[in-house]
């Protein structure tokens, strides 16, 4: 086995994994704070990326467009909380999950109705080319864009961690995540918190949408990203931000390695299910994922 090639595949996988984590992060934020499994996260990514791209194509400065899109995503989060979640408080989790599938349809329809369904190209100014000196020195080709994406993801996680640890709102969010009722009892306004969480998840969706959009083009396939992020959640645990990152790295690396070394043996195309089957095997050992909260049943 060619060690350099192995290393190249591994790094590529890890960097792709970071991109998965970005999408998974949005799921975790909402699940942690409100116990809602937000299937619409993929649609939110698509909606954010499409809005940004369309604004830029209509001649808006990209920084202004970024701010406008962020505002749109925040409004979307607040409206979702008000229209979908608030009337469904205290319903079983599956009902809320179904409601987010409904929301997925609404978002997919809405974004294509407003902006049209043709695919767009998105330039963030970082070309998707191998870094020259790495190629020259070790003959390893690692894309500049992947490094950039990983840095952005890292920065985002750091900002979120600071936000959760150091700010008043962040502490309130953690309190809600720990125990809804106790948080209410000490006077934390639950509905504001949910609106904030959905808005933050919208922001994360925007970042994920920009990076994925720059990589694969802004098109409808972005909504399937949600499906890529789910195995990451299974491995990392639904409630854990570090879990989302680590899970993304594990999934990304193993998926790429399996595709290269194991795929040809079974005829290829395994990327549609490999991550899921791996997550499944993982769950047999650790049913709550790596960092998920251990579930204790009482009768």
């Amino acid at each position, binding site marked *: 086995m060619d060690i350099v090639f192995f290393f190249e595949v591994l790094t590529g996988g890890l960097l792709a994994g970071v991109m998965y984590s970005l999408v998974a992060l949005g799921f975790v934020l909402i699940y942690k704070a409100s116990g809602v*499994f937000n299937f619409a996260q993929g649609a939110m990514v698509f909606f954010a990326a499409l809005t940004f791209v369309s604004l830029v194509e209509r001649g808006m400065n990209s920084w202004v467009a970024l701010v406008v899109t962020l505002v749109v995503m925040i409004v979307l989060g607040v409206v979702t909380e008000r*229209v*979908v979640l608030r*009337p*469904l408080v205290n*319903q*079983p*989790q*599956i*009902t809320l*999950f*179904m*409601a987010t*599938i*409904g*929301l*997925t*349809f*609404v*978002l*997919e*329809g*809405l974004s*294509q*109705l407003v902006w*049209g*369904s043709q695919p767009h190209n998105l330039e963030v100014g970082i070309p998707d080319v191998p870094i020259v000196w790495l190629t020259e020195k070790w003959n390893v080709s690692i894309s500049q864009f992947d490094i950039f994406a990983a840095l952005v993801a890292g920065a985002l996680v750091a900002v979120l961690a600071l936000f959760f640890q150091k700010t008043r709102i962040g502490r309130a969010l953690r309190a809600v995540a720990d125990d809804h009722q106790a948080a209410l009892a000490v006077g934390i306004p639950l509905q504001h918190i949910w609106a904030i969480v959905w808005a933050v998840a919208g922001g994360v969706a925007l970042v994920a949408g920009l990076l994925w959009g720059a990589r694969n083009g802004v098109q409808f396939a972005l909504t399937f990203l949600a*499906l890529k992020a*789910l*195995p990451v*959640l*299974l491995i990392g645990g*639904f409630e854990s931000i570090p879990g989302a990152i680590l899970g993304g790295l594990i999934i990304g690396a193993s998926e790429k390695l399996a595709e290269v070394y194991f795929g040809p043996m*079974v*005829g290829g*195309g*395994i990327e*549609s*299910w490999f991550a*899921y*089957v791996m*997550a*499944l095997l993982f*769950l*047999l050992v650790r*049913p*709550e*994922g790596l960092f998920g909260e251990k579930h204790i*049943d*009482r*009768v």
Partner: protein
Amino acid sequence: MLYREAGQFKSSYGEDQQIFPIRQDRIAIALLLVVAFVVVPLVGNQYWLSALITPFLIFALAALGLNILTGYAGQLSLGTAAFMAVGAFMAYNFVLRMPWLGVIPSFVLAGLCAALVGVVFGLPSLRIKGFYLAVATLACQFFVLWVIQRWGWITNNSASGVITAQTITLFGYPLTSPAAKYLFTLSVVVVLALAAKNLMRSETGRAFMAVRDMDVAASVIGIPMMKTKLLAFAISSFYCGVAGALYAYTYLGTVEPEAFTLDLSFRVLFMIIIGGVGPILGSFLGAAFITLFPILLNLATSGVSHALGIEVPHAMVSNLELIVFGSLIIFFLIVEPSGLARLWQITKEKLRLWPFPH
């Protein structure tokens, strides 16, 4: 007044335990069956039979299968379409490779294959539950489709992966006309629905419900967890598998693996949510709603655009439909989280008193 069971005394255990203990229910079911078996094939035209009522019945059967798993045994699954795919493609192979077998045994065997796949992918349910399980069943969805696309034997080495359902013959009578296909589908659905209704009153059904309500408590009172959960997966997948076989043979005709994507799983899930998680009637109501709704919506949009005299582009219409469909699901969940079956319950209670206020 209309729906009152007062005065219907039960004088034997047999009477007390029948599937429909109330006389009005029995009359209603009998009438419904007469209408479905006699009136509909006589009155309905080809389009109605083949494009509306047959798919409705097939989806009702699939929803029934999922309902057994999710509504009665409490295991959330997103792999319905995969089980249907197994049923459809295995039925094709049984009919193709063992033509002496006959239609019904082939379909039953196809259902059993789906049940086997269901048991394998139901194994994680012993360790995990809730959303972890739901996501784990997605593995089944993707893996099964991949196998069907890759393994040439299943599609009889058809280059495009598309199979054409053979004409099936029942007791020497080929099922080619829409009415014949409809009657065949209807018979299968009626038999399986009655079986499901009966199953849920048995020890197995009660064990399912105990597991759904709280699995730890259920295992404490001595319900074997592994057997119950895997049986729920097996029975549910069997229903979905038969539904898939019917889907291929009496509705689609030519089947590609892409017909069984995750979207189909979601559609079936919507059916049981909108119809009501639990009651068997709910599966039928939900299936009727989801099958008929897009058609009604289509008629409505074309009607409106005609009335306004404007030409609405096709893409816009389909996006609008997506939005309306999504909003409607949210609306339903907010207004009636227990589904359409609950509305029927309320109606029955009202009918019990009608026309008196008390």
